[in-house]
């Protein structure tokens, strides 16, 4: 009846573990409750977004110039998925915590850790289940893409996929935080408090330190919401993706350190510190990767293609000294319209931030405030402009290069659409919730029990 020893030492199959984790998370009510709550939340955002987009489109249909500013990414996808982001931030921790919390509370964890799996394997399996749960809870948001297409709306594949990737990574990050919280907490309630303190604390960071400089700006960058910004702007940043993955792996590693009982806290703390150290190193390395691809259809994060090509040939270092306070709207314009694009287009750009807070109490104004100095090679020039139309010629002059001929390329046409999404309430408040309830009851159906299992009756 017992297995031979050699047989026992074989590596156990991951399949039953993954199936168990998936079944556990799907059988919980938290997942289905979140799905039901996401329906009206996402639905409301979508209907509102379509209404606003239609209003803007009505005017744009008369004017092609106005139409160019109508992008479904900004008008529909970002606000609709913004509601999904809200649901993930506030509700998804409860779903993810269940992956471990119930095992802790019922004592099943004491059986689980005795199975022939490494702690890291157990955590990875749970993270995989959390990922599957994220895929399920994203159904309402994903359904808006189909509805938008049915309404006749335009979807650019690359920017849509990029946005989905951003939300996937954000969901994974929230799931990993929740899993770690569940690992270090005695019960699910404490874990939820810890996880929400981190996710909602991110908002506090955002609000408190928005537009600040120095250490405050560094703190603001720790906010989880920062992870989505780049994807919402249509940038695929390899460094950001690697950085998020490093944090997820770091959280999973610390969770696997704290999962097994029977190890004294001192050893767990030392191992956790090592994990944190490795994660920080990985984040620093990832932050050095500055490659970012502009995946937007309107190439909003790039100069015109001819300028991009010419700027890429300017090999000497370009030093930009900005005399603006970070909260100054001109700096925000400059950063978005010029500096971010330059950093992506030119091989060697350094930006020095010379503008501190402007002292409004000073009677004599600082003449240098508002100037931006560009030094290319041994030549320099100063400008107050934040527009690429003035700065690019300045740079070409510094580099003694002729500006590229303005090519009459295919301009972004914009995608105005006048439509009403009111009818989709039937889907978000009727069809989809019914499907969710049916899905929930399907997961609760009794399993098919092999005949051999039931043949043996009670003694």
């Amino acid at each position, binding site marked *: 009846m*017992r297995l031979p020893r050699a047989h026992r030492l074989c590596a156990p*199959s991951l399949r039953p573990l993954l199936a168990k984790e998936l079944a556990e998370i799907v059988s919980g009510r938290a997942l289905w409750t979140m799905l039901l709550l996401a329906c009206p939340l996402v639905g409301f955002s979508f209907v509102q977004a379509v209404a606003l987009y239609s209003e803007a489109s009505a005017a744009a249909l008369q004017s092609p110039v106005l139409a160019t500013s109508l992008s479904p990414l900004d008008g529909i996808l970002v606000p609709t998925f913004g509601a999904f982001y809200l649901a993930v931030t506030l509700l998804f921790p409860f779903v993810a915590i269940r992956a471990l919390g119930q095992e802790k509370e019922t004592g099943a964890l*004491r059986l689980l850790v005795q199975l022939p799996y490494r702690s890291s394997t157990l955590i990875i399996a749970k993270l995989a289940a959390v990922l599957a749960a994220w895929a399920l809870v994203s159904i309402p948001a994903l359904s808006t893409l189909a509805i938008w297409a049915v309404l006749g709306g335009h979807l650019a594949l690359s920017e849509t996929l990029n946005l989905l990737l951003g939300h996937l990574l954000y969901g994974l990050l929230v799931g990993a935080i929740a899993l770690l919280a569940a690992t270090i907490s005695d019960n699910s309630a404490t874990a939820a408090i810890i996880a929400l303190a981190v996710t909602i604390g991110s908002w506090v960071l955002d609000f408190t330190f928005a537009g600040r400089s120095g250490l405050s700006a560094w703190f603001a960058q720790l906010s989880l919401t920062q992870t989505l910004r780049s994807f919402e702007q249509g940038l695929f940043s390899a460094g950001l993706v690697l950085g998020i993955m490093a944090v997820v792996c770091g959280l999973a590693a610390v969770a696997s350190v704290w999962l097994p009982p029977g190890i004294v806290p001192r050893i767990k703390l030392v191992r956790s510190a090592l994990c944190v150290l490795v994660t920080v190193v990985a984040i620093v390395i990832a932050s050095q990767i500055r490659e970012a691809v502009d995946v937007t259809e309107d190439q909003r994060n790039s100069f015109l293609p001819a300028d991009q090509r010419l700027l890429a040939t300017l090999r000497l270092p370009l030093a930009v000294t900005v005399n603006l306070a970070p909260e100054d709207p001109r700096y925000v314009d400059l950063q978005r319209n010029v500096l971010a694009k330059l950093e992506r287009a030119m091989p060697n750009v350094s930006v020095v931030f010379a503008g501190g807070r402007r002292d409004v109490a000073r009677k004599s104004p600082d003449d240098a405030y508002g100037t931006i100095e560009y030094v290319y090679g041994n030549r320099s020039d100063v400008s107050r402009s934040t527009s690429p139309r003035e700065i690019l010629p300045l740079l070409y002059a510094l580099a003694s290069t002729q500006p590229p001929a303005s090519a009459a390329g295919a301009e972004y046409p914009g995608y105005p659409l006048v439509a009403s999404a009111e009818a989709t309430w039937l889907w978000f408040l009727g069809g989809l919730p019914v499907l969710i309830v049916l899905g929930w009851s399907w997961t609760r159906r009794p399993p098919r029990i092999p005949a051999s299992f039931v043949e*043996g009756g009670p003694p």
Partner: protein
Amino acid sequence: MMADICARDAIPAQALRVANLTKRYGHELAISDVTFSLVPGEVLGIVGPNGAGKTTLLETLAGLLAADSGAVFWRGKQLPPQCRRDALFYLPDGVKPYQDRFAAEVVSFFGSVYNRSAAEIAARIAAVGLAPVLGKRVRALSKGYNRRLLIAIGLLTPQDVLLMDEPFDGFDLRQTRHIVEVIRNEAAKGRSFMLAIHQLADAERVCDRFILLAGGQVRAIGTLDELRAQTSRRGASLEELFLALT
């Protein structure tokens, strides 16, 4: 049973040896210098009143609690806590594993982790009489059937030593006798058992030897006859011996 015990006494190799195991909770001593051994096929009972340290001893042995001092040896070699699951499997008391899943799914999960065939899983289900509740969710199981589920899980594990905390809790006399028979059958195949039992009559039914634990300290170790000899009480029951020794 005596013949069985004698037969097992002839097995010289110690499967498990525990030396000076000590565990404190803060300043409170939960178990102190516990030393004993276990031979293959033996059923060892840990008996003692509530708070004697039975569960702490089992959890420390299984590596689920960090010991303050002491060592565990498996076939002569020290077995560090992280390797205990290679030789020992512990079934805790009061666990309702995966409450929202069906009993059949839970048994199948543990069986498939250890690559057990459907026939092997069915054999364990039949052995403990779990079949009538396979289609029920674990949260809906009675205390007795939940205990059967745990025992079925334990029987599916391949470890040489099975540690069980209060394995008969929730069973009536007839069911207890049946599970005793199941354990004895497994032990006859060479598997060792350590059972923490506070019902002394149950312990007397199933165990070959006893560790009498009180206040975290071992008060006596031996077979029933050896304990009788220690106390000079011929024909005394385990209950009487326990009262005399603790």
